[in-house]
């Protein structure tokens, strides 16, 4: 982090850039120490089955930064559906979604950090997932047509954006009528203190 501006002084665009930089670092050095947990042990601890993680390439879960292991099951994604995953990261949930939608369905994985997508790409190719498309784009401005997808999922995304309303407006736009959005997010029991709000590091936790 070059600048040490307080969070309130950053523009949404600056925050987007800082988040992309941070997750680029995570993608390139997942073993390093972060203020938030990253990786396979963390995924297991969250509840992803040990056998599942063991059966997939290690590179898939070692940069995992989601917040819930139940999201994909709760999304009730069905074969043949088109699913948009916002903040797909290294691709662990992406693979699980690809298995659910099957060969007639499609998963679109999006992330703001290019190296995360490169990591996902390698993994998906290894697994032979041909029903996944990846794109580097901000969630606040999706490169998709209106009424394009059946389901949108995200696993810990909104805390990283200062434009949460814009993301939900975009989700609403790209969903087909009757489509659904299933989102896992970290929330607080009480509103954050001034100090917490101002701490730039905590923005990414």
């Amino acid at each position, binding site marked *: 982090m070059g600048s040490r501006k307080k969070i309130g002084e950053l523009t949404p665009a600056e925050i987007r850039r800082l988040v992309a930089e941070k997750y680029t670092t995570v993608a390139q050095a997942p073993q390093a120490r972060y203020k938030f947990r990253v990786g396979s042990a963390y995924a297991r601890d969250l509840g992803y089955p040990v056998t599942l993680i063991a059966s997939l390439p290690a590179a898939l879960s070692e940069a995992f930064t989601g917040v819930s292991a139940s999201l994909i099951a*709760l999304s009730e994604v069905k074969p043949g559906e088109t699913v948009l995953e916002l903040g797909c990261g290294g691709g662990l949930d992406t693979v699980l979604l690809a298995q659910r939608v099957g060969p007639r369905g499609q998963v679109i994985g999006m992330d703001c950090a290019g190296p995360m997508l490169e990591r996902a790409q390698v993994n998906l190719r290894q697994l032979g997932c041909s029903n996944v498309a990846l794109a580097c784009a901000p969630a606040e401005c999706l490169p998709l047509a209106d009424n394009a997808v059946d389901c949108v999922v995200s696993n810990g995304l909104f805390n990283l954006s200062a434009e949460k309303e814009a993301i939900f407006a975009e989700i609403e736009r790209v969903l087909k009528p009757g489509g659904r959005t299933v989102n*896992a997010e970290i*929330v*607080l029991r009480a509103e954050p203190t001034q100090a917490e709000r101002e701490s730039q590091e905590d923005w990414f*936790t």
Partner: protein
Amino acid sequence: MSEKGFLTRYVGAAFSKVEILAREPNKRTKNPNAYVVITRAYKDEALPLSLTRPELSLTSARETLKELWVFPVAPEFCNLACTHCLYAASPLRKNPYRLHEQELTRIFAELESLGAAPHLLFTGGEPTLHPQLFSLLDQVDQQGYSFQLMTNGTRIHASEAERLAAFAHLRKVQISLEGPSPELNDTVMGQGLYRRVLQAIDELRTHEVPVAIAVTPMESNQPHLTEIERLAEEKGAELVPILLYDLGAATDNGLKPALVDRSHDSGTADSTLMCDKGVAYSEGKYFSCPVLVKDPDALLGNSLSEALSPRARRQVRRLRDSKAACAVCLKGST
């Protein structure tokens, strides 16, 4: 961000209904104050083509909000118990809600910030049962909003007529009358009401207050509608037909609407739906229209901006497909 903030400010801004599928412990960070919530929201189904109506222009609240219905007392709070009342109002139903001066101030402030200046319709329940009704109307008049009062007339005497006549922005006083004679009217409104209502109309006309007589065409008064029309003409009053909704007392009493021949409509009747022109403020909350103010499905929010949001407008369109009352408006709007 709290769970409530996430649900209402963010998901709720784009989607009308949000469900919580699960709450889980936060294992990502060390913050003991944090947990994980998993939410689900659906985008509205597309409306069948036959039911789609032209989109309401939401570019500005000024365009959207032509009318704001205000309930100074709760809808069921009334000194009468008319047999066709959609709220089944009656003197036995004691609802303590009274519109507070501060609520009105808040409404004005929001209207100003939205740049909207709707026509205000004060209705009820019986609005004159509000002990400070006239001081509330004074405020409205001073603010310069055009307004009207819908009343059963029982509490309009010479002094009230005089006060009403003094308002600069009062467009009219609308009084209900359901028959052209005591026998025909009083079976609906109650004993002695025909005489009382006509006294109020005369008092208002004496003071040159514009009056509209509201009649609900029903099976029972259908043969006498032309007589009511003549009476209105005689009194120098406008005649406003009101739709009968299968709600409240009308349902309990099995009342049926009149089969009105619309070919004789004057042509001045406004055919826009109430929910296209505005919203209703009742008991501190905003609803899609005055008919559905007791229906939780029609609750649009606690503020005008919520009630005019794209989410709320989608909610209104969905209501139109599901509510029997909406079918009444769509079929026979006056």
